[in-house]
């Protein structure tokens, strides 16, 4: 075979000598410009090595003459987005909170930005849709509010938190643990009365017998009629919405041990503009007052 090459007669082209079922592979020469474009890509590759981060080192890579980094590109994008948003934020800060919703553009901006803030900072406890969770994480979608559901009140709550002792302006109240104050049978009777307030199944005699116990111990915060008091963050006991559960055992446990739900203040974590946005967003979830 050495030196001997097949030539295909039809095309007058040499073959590679490879044959499949009588079909031979032509050894057509590559176009020379193709070779030049290969060289061009090699040259470009070498230039690129010096222009862009390429050579791996122990802690990262060579920065490249152009100083490009994908992290830097993201930072630039973020800075650009913030620059675009800056005038909107300034506008957001210049009006009072309740009137943000009056300007459709600002409202749309606040809801979009507030949604992002909510998902990053609030959804861990309140749920991605604001539906809350049984066990002390209030539902933000319903119409029942402990501390008030206007945009200003939500703004106040987010800024200073609830029972967040590091913030002197935090919303504060404390329910006493009645296990130390009342006897077990009194607490059981009180629970029946509380059940009766929202129309749940209850022992009517026991409930009636402990109405006075409720008035003596609970009405200071929950009101004589049990509809709660927002200044104290005291829940309305007459509706069907429960923060920790509305069954008999849970109510007994709540009265006995009390509850002390804490929400952190966000004024040091979020900018004022972000808090305004998230307040508008939460207000728009369906429960806003």
């Amino acid at each position, binding site marked *: 075979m050495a030196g*001997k*090459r097949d030539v295909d007669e*039809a095309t007058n082209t040499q073959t590679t000598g490879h044959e499949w079922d009588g079909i031979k592979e032509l050894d057509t020469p590559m*176009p020379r*410009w*193709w070779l030049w474009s290969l060289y061009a890509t090699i040259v470009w590759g070498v230039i690129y090595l010096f222009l862009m981060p390429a050579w791996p080192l122990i802690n990262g890579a060579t920065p490249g003459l152009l100083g490009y980094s994908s992290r830097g590109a993201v930072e630039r994008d973020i800075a650009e987005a913030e620059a675009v948003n800056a005038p909107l934020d300034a506008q957001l800060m210049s009006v009072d909170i309740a009137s943000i919703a009056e300007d459709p553009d600002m409202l749309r901006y606040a809801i979009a930005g507030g949604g992002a803030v909510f998902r990053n900072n609030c959804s861990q406890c309140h749920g991605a849709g604001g539906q809350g969770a049984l066990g002390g994480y209030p*539902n933000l979608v319903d119409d029942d509010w402990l501390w008030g559901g206007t945009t200003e009140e939500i703004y106040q709550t987010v800024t200073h938190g609830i029972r967040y002792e590091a913030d002197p302006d935090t919303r504060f109240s404390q329910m006493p643990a009645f296990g130390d104050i009342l006897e077990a049978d009194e607490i059981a009777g009180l629970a029946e009365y509380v059940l009766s307030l929202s129309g749940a199944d209850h022992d009517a005699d026991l409930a009636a017998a402990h109405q006075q116990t409720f008035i003596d111990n609970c009405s200071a915060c929950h009101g004589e009629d049990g509809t709660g008091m927002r200044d104290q963050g005291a829940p309305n006991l007459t509706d069907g*919405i429960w923060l920790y559960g509305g069954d008999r055992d849970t109510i007994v446990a709540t009265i006995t041990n009390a509850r002390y739900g804490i929400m952190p203040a966000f004024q040091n974590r979020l900018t004022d503009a972000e808090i305004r946005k998230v307040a508008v967003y939460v207000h728009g979830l*369906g429960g806003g007052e």
Partner: protein
Amino acid sequence: MTSTSETPPPLFAAREPIFPRRVSGKFRTLKWWILGVTLAIYYITPWIRWDRGPSLPDQAVLVDLANRRFYFFFIEIWPQEFYFVAGLLIMAGLGLFLFTSALGRVWCGYTCPQTVWTDLFILVERWIEGDRNARVRLWNAPWDAKKIRLRAIKWSVWLLIAVATGGAWVFYFADAPTLLGEILTGRAPAVAYLSVATLTATTFTFGGFMREQVCIYMCPWPRIQGAMMDEQTLTVAYRDWRGEPRGKHRKAAGAEQLGDCIDCNACVNVCPMGIDIRDGQQLACITCALCIDACDDVMEKVNKPRGLIDYITLADGERERAGGQDAPVWKRILRPRVILYFVLWSAIGLGLLAALFLRTDVAFSIEPVRNPVNVVLSDGSVRNAYELRLRNMTGFDRAFRLSVESPDPVALTLEGVDGLDVSVPADATYRQRVYLTAPTGSAAGAGALTDLDLVLEDTNTGQVVREGTVFHGTGE
């Protein structure tokens, strides 16, 4: 059939320069027309104006990437209607299959931009440097003042065409008069200059220097066509049974045994691909039919019948060689695969047309909020939330009233809006959160799922669009 040779083949081969000679004839005339029409469409289209009202652009054909709109005369496509574009692309693909199975490589030979611009560049070349023989002489001439001058003029004209080509492209993506002004004054976005520069460079090199190399080495379409062609495919072929043995010397002894081919090389000289069609069907042939014109011209001069080189199928070639007749033209074209491609192509086209004329100018979509699916309010009523999207696809503002049609009564309220009226600006999407509330103990509130309709009524025209959705009660 192989023989052997001692020399190893070269690994790389330089491009053989090609100097196509001027030719005239019916196919050349047809090609000039196609060249003129396609180039005119390409260059003029972005400048056609179309009045759509004050808030929409007045460019007839516009791909508005920034605002996510595509305008084509009276049609406006929104991003969610991208299936129109997908459908058109599928039609374009099937159209190529259809033409290939019916008429062979007709796309390559007549309408491919590479062919059209190469034709234009060769025309310029001929005007400046002369016809084939002059160009061959110039190619072989040393680089004297005349050659440099001619080359400089030619390349300058090519460059102008290339810039115009790249320039026309960007006008499809922005308001053409505005962008032209911006480009000329240096205020256009960088991407515009980059696009013009890229397309200028490709047009200049592909049309001026790469030419047939693009078809032979770079384009994937001939490879696909190779799989689509068969013995029934119309192709440009040389009737070797009539032409062979070829010979120049008609007055020499034994000339009466010669075939019709006088070996004048006219077919080779006019070929833009630089091939000899008499070698038989080959990959490089784009079936531009210029050799047919050239040969017919010669055949008339020597008083032989035309058609020594002609559009025929391989099967017809076999039949003719055996002394038979060509199959009738309709039989070549009306083949099952042609009919299949045509049916698919036209079905998609009709489907797109139906979709175009049946679509409403207001799109109304309802997305139930699933997180949470429902919420029980303090009075025990059950509320569902929905995200509404209203797309006003007209050029004027519109006012709508929402209502609900449900088997069990539910109350409709809108977030942040008193009442049930909303207005949607021209050419805009309006998002609105709405609530449906079922009273305590109602069938919808206590049940599992209730099907209902939201109804959108244009308060001016009375046009009604309804969209079904479900209400999630608290029941299982």
